[in-house]
């Protein structure tokens, strides 16, 4: 075993003494930084360049031109009234120095006040003006509650629950307090639940069990987070929604980089055997008192090790960058999900690790293909070319066959390497199943490895 590890160490040393290897790794690191930057930091940087209030003055001036527009009877047109509303809105914002982050702006309260001052009753206008002037949160929630109940009396209890919670917990409206968003999600979920329950009772065809289920889960998760004070849920990032301060969005985005790790593995796997032949060094390798299959295995293991090390490097670098960019307040939150009607906590790191491993399936299969071709024909160019093509064009081939309604395409190796998609049933094949995919992958691996073995161990040099 120690001897085998020394062989792997030899291969490792050789790969890392090549300039080509370092160029690939530098590109990988650069891509990692690029990705972390664009999925994490870019939003913040650009929002600091771009601020809404720079448009307010020009909007005000534009709308002022049309406030006196009248129709044939001499009454102000609707458009003139809209302009008056907008003029009142922008003037208030400018005159009172309201910032774009102010809750009164974000919730639309200032706009409601402007609307009331132009089209509403005097009483309502005065009430809203008082709320805005005094920045009275409680009065705002009460006013909004009245509006909601007036619009949908059936959901009064739900609206009341939300308003009570917000008032009793001193939640600032807008998006500065995370609880505001969660309460809103829970409220909407409760409404959806009530709606679906009614449809069920009416035995309506519009009833949707999955929407009901989803709303139940949202409600449970929201209530759990409110109760336990969990600011954000890392699980959202895994489901393609933005989560909290973006830490987990950046982490999940790093999965894309495994494709690049795959390219590196294919280049190394496709040349690690062929290069020995083209340089003539194979003779020195094979006259060592080591059986050929051990030498071949050490090369294979070294290739996979480099891929694994590159993946770990991508993970660690992304982790550090994400910490730096987002502050990392979310880094140690558990991922919340609902299982069997109960909220369960899990480690988002474990979940990410699982996704890394699933993404690694394709990398390993394609690297093994490169390795097999390389040891069969002793040409790194051919091995890398074939495997790169399969790696990058495989999905396209499957998609084309799929468009032609050729169901057999689901038995192709290219259609069976994305275990995550097969699990989520997003591959487009109705009959796709994970066990079949695993069998197909294993069979291909056996063929590839036997080819590599035959090409290397039995070949006379």
């Amino acid at each position: 075993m120690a001897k085998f590890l020394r062989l792997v160490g030899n291969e490792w040393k050789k790969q890392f003494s090549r300039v080509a290897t370092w160029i690939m790794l530098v590109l990988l690191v650069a891509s990692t930084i690029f990705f972390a930057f664009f999925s994490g930091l870019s939003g913040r940087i650009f929002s600091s360049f771009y601020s809404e209030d720079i448009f307010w003055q020009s909007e005000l001036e534009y709308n002022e031109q049309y406030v006196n527009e009248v129709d044939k009877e001499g009454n102000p047109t609707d458009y003139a009234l809209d302009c008056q509303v907008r003029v009142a809105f922008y003037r208030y914002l400018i005159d009172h120095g309201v910032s774009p982050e102010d809750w009164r702006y974000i919730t639309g309260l200032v706009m409601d006040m402007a609307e009331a001052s132009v089209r509403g009753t005097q009483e309502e206008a005065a009430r809203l003006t008082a709320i805005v002037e005094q920045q009275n949160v409680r009065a705002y929630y009460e006013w909004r509650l009245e509006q909601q109940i007036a619009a949908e009396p059936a959901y009064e209890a739900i609206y009341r629950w939300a308003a009570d919670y917000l008032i009793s917990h001193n939640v600032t409206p807008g998006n500065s307090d995370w609880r505001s968003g969660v309460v809103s999600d829970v409220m909407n979920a409760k409404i959806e639940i009530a709606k679906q329950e009614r449809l069920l009772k009416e035995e309506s065809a519009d009833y949707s069990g999955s929407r009901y289920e989803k709303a139940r889960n949202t409600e449970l998760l929201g209530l759990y987070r409110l109760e336990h004070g969990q600011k954000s849920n890392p699980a959202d990032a895994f489901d393609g929604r933005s989560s909290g301060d973006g830490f987990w969005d950046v982490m999940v985005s790093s999965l894309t980089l495994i494709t690049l790790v795959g390219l590196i593995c294919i280049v190394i796997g496709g040349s690690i055997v062929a290069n020995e032949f083209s340089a003539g060094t194979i003779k020195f390798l094979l006259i060592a008192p080591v059986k050929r299959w051990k030498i071949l295995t050490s090369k294979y293991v070294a290739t996979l090790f480099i891929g694994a090390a590159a993946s770990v490097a991508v993970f660690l670098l992304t982790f550090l960058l994400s910490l730096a960019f987002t502050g990392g307040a979310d880094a140690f939150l558990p991922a919340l999900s609902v299982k069997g009607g109960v909220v369960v906590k899990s480690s988002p790191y474990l979940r990410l690790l699982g996704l890394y491993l699933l993404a690694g399936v394709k990398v390993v299969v394609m690297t093994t293909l490169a390795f097999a071709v390389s040891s069969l024909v002793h040409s790194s160019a051919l091995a890398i070319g074939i495997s790169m093509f399969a790696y990058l064009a495989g999905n396209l081939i499957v998609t084309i066959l799929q468009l032609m309604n050729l169901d057999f395409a689901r038995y192709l190796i290219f259609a069976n390497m994305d275990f995550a998609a097969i699990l989520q049933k997003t591959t487009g094949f109705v009959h796709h199943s994970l066990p079949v995919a695993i069998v197909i992958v294993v069979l291909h691996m056996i063929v590839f490895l036997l080819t590599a073995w035959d090409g290397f161990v039995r070949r006379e040099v």
Partner: protein
Amino acid sequence: MEAILKIEHLSKTLGSREILHDISFETYGGEVFGFLGPNGAGKTTLIKVVVGLLTLDTGKVTIAGKDLAKDFEAALANLGAIVENPEFYKFLSGYDNLLQFANMRGGVEKERIDEVVRMVGLENRIREKVGRYSLGMRQRLGVAQAILHRPKLLVLDEPTNGLDPAGIKDLRDVLKNLAHKEGVAVMVSSHLMSEMELMCDRVGVIANGVLRSVHPIEELVSAAGIGQEEFVFSVDDPEKGAEVLSHAFETEVKPNEEGKLDLTFPKEEAQTSLARANRILIESGISLYTVSKKENRRLEDVFIELTRGEGKQIG
């Protein structure tokens, strides 16, 4: 004496051509065994079988008592070799290349690497990348890797290729030392008889895949008439000179194409005969310009004789 390398009835066919036919011989610790044959005779193929690069069809190869086919790793653990050109990883330093070999074999200490590097005279350049080495330096590095793990059997394929005369002499000394002082069995192949004579204790001659003969080098040397010494006389009147010398030594002497006279004397009487020939020429009034001793060209003749008439040679 125990045989280090034992080859029994070895045959090898590549494609449809039989490269080696029923070859058997042994080499022993403490001797340099030369493997002599023209290009294409099968030398490299035989060496590739011995070092495990090729498999044998029939027969048996044993290294230090271990059967190569059955006990591959144990057999090769006692072998050091250079096959064809010494190729190394150009992007690694000489030292790192040696480390690669040491790692594959195990049991090689850092001190041993330094010692071997000194032995082949590479200590000043060992940290440089091999890509910048000359062929001669690569040959030296090749020898270094071959002896790194103190093998009992050392196999070198055309080891003097690309070496300058000084390098050839150094290599000869290193190999002789290893054989005679450290008891290593050294096997070298070559197509140059003169090189073999200086280096080897025993020579096996191969032609067209058949081992013609195995002789101690002395036997070959005497077969080549090395027991006699041949002299070339350059005189002003070759015709007359030939006549008097033929008469005096009771043998037929004729001027050769260059107008010089060749004479052969038994080794032990060479000096007195030479003096006598001088005297006779001078007494006969013939001016003698030069007398020179002829090199053993006939060793090559023996070689050609041993390998001749076996069809075309393949390069």
